[in-house]
């Protein structure tokens, strides 16, 4: 009969209208600024740089400015300048560090390829998305100070992944230490013989310059 389909449709909308007052399945709105969607652990938005220590983010960045991410980044939104000197990283090893590390979030496509290719687990994906700015150049270009976030933050965002990364780094570090110890032992063994060349002077560890605490 003419009109039966229309009535059926009207019944559906009426059901939804009434349901929106008592049935959470029919009232799906997350009222954003007050309520926030619980972001899944895997959620990614823009990259950040992992530092070991919240107190001294610049001194303990994992990044060694190898520039792999810069090369692999499909939209080429990463800009890195290597430092000319070396600084000790978190484990005290002398490393090159990024003198400049900029990510243009106005270009970044959140593809996560930088994270995948980073051999040092130094760059990870952040979950902050409330980044609207009124100025494109000062607001959306993030430098290394803005990018550096402590490892604890990473744990907070991606607990599973962070735990894996920590495990892996710990094993690697251990392996490296053992290797170093073995090398040292070998060296010591070699040093037992009379030295052919004079031993190098002890390395001078430059203190990191004072840095204001990262916001």
């Amino acid at each position, binding site marked *: 009969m003419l009109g039966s*389909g229309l009535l*059926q449709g009207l019944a559906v909308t009426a059901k939804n209208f009434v349901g929106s007052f008592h049935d959470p399945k029919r009232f799906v709105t997350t009222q954003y600024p007050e309520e926030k969607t619980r972001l*899944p*652990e895997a*959620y990614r938005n823009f990259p950040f740089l992992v530092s070991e220590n919240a107190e001294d983010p610049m001194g303990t960045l994992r990044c060694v400015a190898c520039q792999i991410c810069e090369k*692999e980044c499909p939209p080429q939104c990463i800009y890195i300048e290597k430092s000319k000197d070396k600084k000790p990283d978190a484990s005290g090893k002398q490393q090159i560090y990024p003198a400049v590390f900029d990510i243009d979030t106005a270009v970044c496509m959140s593809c996560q390829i930088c994270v995948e290719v980073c051999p040092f687990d130094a760059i990870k994906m952040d979950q902050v998305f409330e980044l609207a700015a009124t100025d494109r150049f000062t607001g959306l270009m993030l430098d290394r100070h803005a990018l550096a976030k402590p490892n604890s933050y990473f744990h907070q965002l991606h607990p599973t992944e962070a735990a894996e990364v920590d495990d892996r780094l710990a094993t690697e570090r251990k392996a490296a230490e053992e290797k170093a110890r073995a090398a040292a032992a070998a060296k010591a063994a070699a040093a037992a013989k009379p030295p052919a060349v004079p031993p190098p002077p002890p390395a001078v560890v430059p203190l990191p310059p004072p840095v204001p605490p990262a916001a």
Partner: protein
Amino acid sequence: MSFSDPSPLSAAPGASVRAVHDEFHGDLLEVSMGPHHPSTHGVFRMMVTLDGETVVKLKPVFGYLHRNHEKIGENTSYLGSMPYTDRLDYLCSMTNNWAYALAVEKLAGQAVPERAEYLRVILAELTRLLNHTCLAGFLLQDCGASGTPLMYAFREREKILDLFESLSGSRMMCNYQRFGGCRVDAPAGWLDAARALTDGYGSFLDEYEALLTGNEILMARTQGIGCLSAKLAVSAGVTGPLLRAAGVAYDLRKVDGYGFYPRFDFRVPLGAHGDTYDRYMVRVLEMRESIRILQQALRDIPAGPIMDPKAKLRGFRPKPGEVYSRIEGPKGEIGFHLISEGGPNPYRYRVRPPSLINLTILEDLCLGHSIADAVVILGSIDIVLGEVDR
């Protein structure tokens, strides 16, 4: 009070007074619909010539979203192109990923672990659900329903997007699949969530059909409108639900049997009239079949690795060769044609866009119908401009 262009939405502003007077009294009215128009699904433009309200000529104009996907693909590494494929048909990033991954795997002769294949089927079918649901919503929007069907469609879409997000990290631009498998394994509880969604989807479809399928206005607006003959459809390279609505049984999941599709029991619905209603209904029925596939896949999915251990992401250089590989995307046959010269970038990177080629028959379908029908026919073809223009 200020004065502005006389004719705001036609592409050529300043259509003179004289011209419009001629159109008043003359025979035909030329209307430029788009590139900004509520129902062109993006920046698509139709140059329509009207006799009264009847379409006598319709020329599609493309390129307003031509973002040089193929050129960028030739300048980017194989891996780097993967996130770009997300942005082709931005409603169906997972199937685009799969099509591209499959092409590269064929180019390099890589194998994919079983679990990854299952995951790919699951994601592809979820994408199909997502795409067809959105399409139904947009189609009804084009028919003039004020948002409600679209809202219901997007309500369900959000559920699927939540799944995608918890798996891949992004709602739309998943960038999930890799040559030789998938990027990460499904997190704990993901498969259960997918099962819950699959089981609940049928009841949503029931409600949606109650809202619309029997609706007299919808039937009057779509039945007998824009009939596509099987012969023209095949000749014009039309694929996907459009082709099947015209009565041609050609579904690459059955024909090519890529992935693990031969393992699943599903049917391919066929239309008899090839009109807009058939195109709509075939999609609805396809969704029901997708639910069946999903249930089987989620039941059978094995444990195991998700990545071929030999796969290499960085510095991936396939040997020289050429491949054309295609899958059944929600909109039709999405194919990738890759030529490798042995370098880190493909020498030629070509996307076979189903949306663009399905538009070949747009004028044939619209001629003789009114402008309101043209809008609905365009909606039923289901295009996404990111893929049409690339």
